[in-house]
């Protein structure tokens, strides 16, 4: 199917830009929560009844987040129109539409959490959907690349060390961990749940990545995907420890402390990267390691490691 689709450099670069802006949006959202600025602008969709309120104190973070979100929303509309006009892959066209629906839902959730004074279930949903949306934009960037359009290098699934099903476990467990982290940040649960689950999700990532590195080492795409996920996860674990330690150190602070904000926001951003990397790895596995019954038609076969 990919062979019928010409590579469109403009669309691919636009998709990368959208993914980068979305990561910036995740950072902006993390700053709002970490700076306790979520309710600094009580009205929505306007801010203090204006399009541009005075950018002072917490308003800078909350309204800045809204401005980046608006930009991402507009970029997503352009992306969807571009995909619908140029893409032949039906599933990618639907993915473009799904991305737009997600970003609209995300905006509505953001407005609701302000108007309803940060109820934990809306704020947590808003945080989780942000992570899913970022992964979607990364996936679109992946699907529009010339490298993707060149087709898969298929490889036999090792029956003793299956990877197709296992690869899905990583994004699912990462999403669970992100949801626990978001719920803890919005005071629905204690941080202990997020901390307790971190060995589980780290273990799952190690399991998936090491299985690829040990049993599918000759497949370059899978190997790179696994190493990337491992590297990001390694950083994320230490960032999580740092973020927690700064929270303990500043437990009696009467205002958000810069070091705590910095580590927490980087932890949130790298969490988004972990999610995206696990989704990308699962996509690569499912593309390059066909189900045993589906055969290898039209693929560049690579011998298993």
């Amino acid at each position, binding site marked *: 199917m990919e062979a019928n689709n010409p590579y469109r450099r403009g669309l691919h670069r636009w998709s990368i830009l959208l993914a980068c802006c979305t990561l910036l949006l995740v950072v902006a959202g993390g700053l709002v929560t970490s*700076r*306790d600025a979520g309710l600094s602008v*009580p009205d929505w969709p306007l801010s203090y009844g204006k399009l541009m309120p*005075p950018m*002072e104190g917490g308003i800078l973070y909350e309204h800045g987040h809204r401005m980046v979100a608006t930009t991402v929303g507009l970029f997503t509309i352009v992306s969807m129109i571009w995909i619908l006009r140029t893409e032949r892959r039906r599933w990618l066209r639907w993915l473009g539409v799904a991305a737009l629906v997600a970003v609209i839902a995300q905006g509505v959730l953001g*407005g609701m959490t302000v108007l309803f004074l940060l109820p934990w279930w809306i704020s947590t949903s808003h945080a989780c959907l942000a992570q899913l949306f970022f992964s979607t934009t990364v996936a679109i960037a992946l699907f529009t690349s010339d490298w993707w359009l060149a087709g898969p290098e298929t490889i036999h699934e090792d029956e003793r060390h299956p990877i197709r099903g296992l690869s899905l476990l990583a994004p699912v467990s990462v999403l669970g961990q992100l949801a626990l982290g978001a719920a803890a940040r919005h005071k629905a649960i204690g941080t202990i749940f997020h901390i307790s689950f971190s060995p589980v999700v780290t273990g799952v990532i190690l399991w998936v990545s090491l299985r690829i590195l040990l049993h599918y080492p000759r497949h370059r795409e899978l190997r790179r995907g696994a190493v990337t996920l491992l590297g990001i996860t390694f950083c994320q674990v230490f960032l999580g420890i740092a973020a927690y330690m700064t929270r303990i150190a500043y437990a009696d602070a*009467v205002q958000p402390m810069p070091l705590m904000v910095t580590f927490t926001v980087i932890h949130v951003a790298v969490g988004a990267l972990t999610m995206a990397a696990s989704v990308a790895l699962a996509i690569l596995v499912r593309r390059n390691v066909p189900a045993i019954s589906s055969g290898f038609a039209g693929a560049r076969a690579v011998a298993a490691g």
Partner: protein
Amino acid sequence: MWENQYLKRLLAAPLLFLAACGTGSQPKPEAAAVQNLPAAHVDPATAGSITGRITFAGTPPAMPVIDFSSNPQCERAHKTPWKAETVVVNPNGTLSNVFVWIKDGLPPARWDAPSEPAHLDQNGCIYEPHVLGIMEGQPLEILNSDPVNHNVHAESKVNAAWNESQPPRAEHKFKRFDSAEVLFPVTCSVHPWMKSYIGVSPHPFFAVTGAEGTFTLKGVPPGTYTVEAVHEKYGRKEGKLTLEAGGKATIDFAYGS
């Protein structure tokens, strides 16, 4: 603010199935029940007073100096470093900002709230006072004496929570709380160090300790009462006492680090 109310209803409509999760901001039915009670009457001839002192034992915790640098106008309002008011221990070893009230023992009655408003000011990007006592139904007048935008977020759980902006030179806001609630924070997310506490009492027998760390509840009818002291950091303490007709009763509370 009507736009916000309209938007809230519009957005909430498809989410009714999630209403069970709740936002914790609905008023409780006790307020209506109070209206059906007989009007309270205190005979001045038998009324007495309750006094006390809130002491603090141990080393007072060092309060952090607030960093106002995120807003230069807030910074300019303070010529000297301003410390957080979470724990204010007076030179005489007593504790400020403790809300004291008669928690239990008064006969069921409806106490009419004063028409005079209680005041909460935003001055120098600080709430004044830090702890405020108010009666159910009494108006609360909120001022913004600063040249900057503030939002005022009443984080009440029993009473309906609200969050409203208050630009500089805006009209004063007037609010009421219909149910007793001791204590809840009032915060500003524009300036996250700003925090005040409000205690809503169903009767007029409450006080907040100041620079002497003492309190006096006047005009109290004779009876046996549970008196409660509430501090934002050190929590609640209570004690029982009996007040004779026309008498004076004393109860002290001790906090410590």
